[in-house]
C-alpha cells in the first residue's frame, strides 16, 4: 500500500496503515449461546487452524475486536450482548452466525428469541447457514478482513451516529411497559 501524496497521508493514510495491521490481528470474543458455537472449536483448532490468519480467542470484551454472535439470541441474552458490545474498545466489529440473527431462522415464531440482530446492533457481516461450516466461517472472516483493509467495515461508527435509533429499538424490547398483543 503506497500512498501518493503527503495530503493523503495526513487525511487517511495513517488510518489505512492502522487498518492494515488491524486486519492481521483480530481477537474475537465469542458469545456462545446459540448452536452455531459448535463449529467454532474445529475452526480454532488444528483441523482448520484459524490462527494462521492471526485470529485468536480473547477472554475479555475490553481487549477484543470481534464480537461473534453464534446463533439465536433470546431477549434476556440480548441485554447482555449489548452490555458486552458497549464495553468493547473501538474499533470493533460484530459477526452474526447462522440464519437466526438474520431473520429468526427456525425461531421465527418464538416469543423469546429476537428475529433480527441488525435492529439492535450494527452487524458487519452475516454468515448464512444453519449452521455455517468452518469453511464458510473462514470465508466470512477473510471477507471481513478485506472490508477492514478497505475501510468499509465501519459498523461501530454507524452505531455512534445512529445511537438514538439503536437505543430506541433496544428499549422497545427490553423495557416494555405495556402488553404487545
Amino acid at each position, binding site marked *: 500500500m503506497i500512498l501518493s501524496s503527503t495530503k493523503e497521508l495526513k487525511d487517511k493514510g495513517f488510518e489505512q496503515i492502522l487498518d492494515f495491521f488491524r486486519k492481521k490481528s483480530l481477537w474475537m470474543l465469542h458469545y456462545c449461546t446459540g448452536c452455531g458455537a459448535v463449529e467454532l472449536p474445529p475452526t480454532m483448532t488444528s483441523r482448520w487452524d484459524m490462527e494462521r490468519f492471526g485470529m485468536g480467542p480473547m477472554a475479555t470484551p475490553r481487549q477484543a475486536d470481534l464480537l461473534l454472535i453464534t446463533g439465536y439470541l433470546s431477549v434476556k441474552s440480548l441485554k447482555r450482548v449489548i452490555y458486552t458490545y458497549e464495553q468493547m474498545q473501538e474499533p470493533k466489529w460484530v459477526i452474526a452466525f447462522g440464519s437466526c440473527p438474520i431473520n429468526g431462522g427456525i425461531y421465527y415464531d418464538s416469543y423469546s428469541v429476537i*428475529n433480527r440482530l441488525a435492529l439492535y446492533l450494527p452487524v458487519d457481516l452475516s454468515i448464512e447457514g444453519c449452521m455455517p461450516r468452518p469453511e464458510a466461517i473462514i470465508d466470512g472472516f477473510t471477507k471481513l478482513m478485506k472490508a477492514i483493509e478497505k475501510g468499509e467495515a465501519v459498523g461501530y461508527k454507524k452505531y455512534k451516529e445512529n445511537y438514538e435509533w439503536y437505543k430506541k429499538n433496544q428499549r422497545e424490547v427490553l423495557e*416494555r411497559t405495556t402488553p404487545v398483543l
Partner: protein
Amino acid sequence: MEQKELIEHIEKNFKYKKEIKVIDGKQFTITVEKDKVLNLLSFLKLIDFKQLALITAVDWIDEKKFEIVYILFSYSHIQQILVKTFVDRDNPQVETVKNLWDVASMYERDVHEFFGIDFIGNDDLRPLILHNWKDLPPLRKDFDSLKYSNKMFGKFKKDEEI
C-alpha cells in the same frame, strides 16, 4: 417393591378416589381430585418416593382445564409415578407442595410464569425465566406466538432496507 405390589399397596392404603394407569414397567400415573393431591403426595413420600423430579402443566383448552403433573421418583423401588390432577382453567389454583419438597418452590414459580397457575401458600411466585413479560403466559394455548413475534421483533420482509 415391584410395580404390581406397589400399585396394590397404594390401592389398599390410599382410600380416596383415584385412577391408576400403568405406562410401562417403570412408570405409572395416578390421577386424583385437586384437593387430594397433597394427601397423595405425602403418602407417596412416606413410601419412599423421595424425589420430586418435576412439576409441569398441560393446557387442555377445549375442556377448559389445566392438567398439573407431579413427577416422583424412588431410588429404592426404581419406579416413576406421575401424579396428575385437573384444575379449572378460568380459576387455576392448587395448594403448594413446597413444604414437602423445597425444590417445589422453583418448579411452582416456573409453572406460574408459563401457565399462570396460582399455588396457594407459595408466596414467592416472582418471574423466573422471562425478561420483563407483560402478556398472557406464553405456554397457554390461546397465546399466539407467531403474532407476538412479528409484532415485537419485526416481521422479516424481503426487500426491506435496514
